[in-house]
């Protein structure tokens, strides 16, 4: 059975053995052992094939057929600077952490510091990542592959009661000439009791490059902590981009995640949340825009094991000719999780008959006193709205652009930061301007 559902690529294991002694922290026995164990688990589990329900919409066939090299440190300074400038929000005056091809790039970074902030980079301090690497609670094939091959990453711990005045920007850059490189990066974020922070992460890469960017993040919020994680995915058009985010949210804490998927050929965003305290809130939202050969897959799982928690999911997709998407949103409300509020909304707009949107809401509710809602739609632009706009003088492209912008704006209209709101708008509008017929 396992054989049918999973794919294999023995080359990956061989590759690991070949590079094992040059991986970050190779000389630390504990790390080398954790890597080897992870690789063994990966090889045992195998690569999820298209018949594995959770991977139905993202084909990992490339993993079975292609060989990966671990990326090198890049030295193309001009290119790095150009990509950096496209991603960096200079009007947000805060710390910046830059990774290039999966390795920290100190020249453009200014690490977060100050009272109550512990920040570490994997390649400079592996030990700080021991908890997340040793914890195999979230073990999965790709997580293990990432664990075995991880090149770099960051760890951020915010002490109780500490409020970060400025958001932290994390920018992941991939330069040209990466040549099917694997970029496995990890992060761990621990938000202390009553702490408050925002992290803005941008993924950007050179056009025309085939690379696989894979990021695993583990986020823990202590009681009453507030953490906002914003992600802009602007990878090159041939890239494979995957993020796997695990969150644990304690009593009365608030976690929010907002993302924009614009780039890459294949993108997969996994958001897996569990509550470990009551009266906690999780808000996940995002927009994904896809066209020619692009595929975006949003996979969420929210476990309500405890009573009185709220979760809200809001996703909007726009697919033009040749674009494909999937939203798989699972909410599990355990029998004891009374007074749970769980909302989920996924709407998709198809701009072409040759576009595809899949919506798969899954609600498993075992408690009887809960409020749960879900709504999923796939539709086209409204011809009456289009005519109304055109009768007022907007040409077809402008009218469509305005309607599409309005459609996705629901995702970021409530953002409390105007700079971020404008960034979302600017990026979404840029995509529309490129794509819509004139």
């Amino acid at each position, binding site marked *: 059975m396992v054989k049918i559902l999973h794919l294999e690529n023995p080359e990956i294991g061989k590759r690991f053995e070949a590079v094992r002694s040059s991986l970050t922290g190779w000389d630390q026995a504990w790390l080398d052992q954790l890597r080897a164990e992870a690789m063994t688990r990966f090889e045992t589990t195998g690569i999820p094939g298209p018949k594995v329900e959770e991977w139905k919409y993202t084909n990992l066939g490339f993993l079975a057929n292609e060989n990966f090299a671990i990326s090198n440190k890049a030295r193309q300074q001009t290119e790095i600077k150009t990509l950096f400038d496209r991603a960096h929000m200079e009007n947000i005056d805060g710390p910046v952490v830059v990774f290039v091809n999966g390795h920290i790039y100190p020249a453009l970074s200014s690490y977060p510091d100050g009272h109550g902030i512990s920040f570490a980079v994997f390649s400079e301090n592996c030990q700080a990542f021991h908890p997340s690497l040793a914890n195999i609670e979230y073990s999965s094939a790709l997580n293990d592959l990432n664990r075995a091959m991880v090149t770099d990453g960051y760890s951020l711990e915010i002490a109780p009661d500490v409020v970060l005045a400025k958001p932290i920007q994390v920018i992941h850059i991939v330069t040209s000439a990466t040549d099917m490189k694997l970029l496995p990066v990890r992060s761990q974020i621990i938000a202390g009791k009553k702490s408050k922070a925002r992290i803005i992460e941008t993924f950007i890469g050179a056009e025309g490059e085939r690379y696989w960017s894979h990021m695993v993040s583990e986020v823990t919020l202590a009681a009453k902590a507030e953490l906002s994680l914003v992600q802009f995915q602007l990878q090159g058009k041939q890239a494979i981009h995957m993020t796997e985010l695990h969150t644990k949210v304690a009593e009365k804490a608030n976690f929010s995640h907002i993302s924009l998927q614009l780039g890459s050929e294949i993108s997969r965003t996994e958001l897996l949340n569990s509550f470990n305290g009551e009266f906690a809130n999780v808000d996940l939202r995002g927009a994904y825009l896809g066209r020619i050969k692009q595929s975006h897959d949003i996979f969420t799982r929210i476990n309500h094991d405890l009573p009185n928690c709220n979760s809200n999911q809001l996703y909007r997709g726009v697919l033009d000719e040749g674009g494909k998407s999937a939203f798989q949103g699972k909410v599990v409300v355990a029998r004891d999780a009374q007074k749970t509020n769980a909302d989920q909304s996924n709407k998709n707009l198809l701009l072409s008959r040759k576009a595809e949107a899949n919506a798969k809401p899954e609600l498993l509710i075992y408690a009887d006193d809960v409020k749960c809602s879900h709504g999923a739609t796939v539709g086209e632009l*409204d*011809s*009456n*709205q289009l*005519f*109304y*706009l*055109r*009768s*007022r*003088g*907007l*040409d*077809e492209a*402008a*009218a469509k652009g*305005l*309607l599409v*912008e*309005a*459609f996705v*704006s*629901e995702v970021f209209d409530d953002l409390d930061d105007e700079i971020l709101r404008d960034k979302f708008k600017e990026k979404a509008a840029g995509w529309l301007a490129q794509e819509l017929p004139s």
Partner: protein
Amino acid sequence: MLEIKNLHVTVGGKEILKGLNLTINDGEVHAIMGPNGAGKSTLSYAICGKDGYEITEGSVTYKGKDFLDMNPDERAGEGLFLGFQYPVEIPGVSNMNFLRTALNSQRCYRGDKDMAAVDFLKLIRAKAKELDMDPEMLKRPVNVGFSGGEKKRNEMVQMAVLDPNLAVLDETDSGLDIDALKIVAEGINRLRASDKAILMITHYQRLLDYVVPDYVHILADGRIVKTGDKSLALALEEKGYVGLGITEAA
């Protein structure tokens, strides 16, 4: 200004307009009345170029230019405005943003520069005030949650801001209470000028008490069957279509 000759329009395979002739000169206000199903709304959509309204014969010429060759947005750029019978709701697009984009699109079509944001704000505030619209409504999404009267008032504000040469108003008066009707009528009257023209499509004579037309036409079964001055509307109000010898759409 507008010359319609022998216009035949088919909608969904059915011929609705069957050889309609109408000439509107600069400075004139025309009213078209007619029983249900006569083709009144079809006429307004055909003038504006809505998809699905197929012109099988005839011509529509605006200031000497062939209208039928133009997209709806090009016609708007040329100075046409359609007041909708049922204004469309557009969630997520603020009235203000919508109007600014519309105005600048038309200016761009005419080869003018965008209006400066400050000037636009002044203009729209002044027009909203003239038409007694709550400025808060300018920030709200286009027509979303507006009452019937508010939607029609919003059409008038749009018309005032866009300042068209030719306004085609499709039952702009329907569903209005008397106060709203007076405001709409005032909006129409403000547009009256020697170089502009207005075509009102209406069911009731009531609007014509406030906007006195130069010509009244009766449209029945896809053609204009009677033309007169405002006394024709009064006669119609008194006697009905049948009383004037006009049968319902055949």
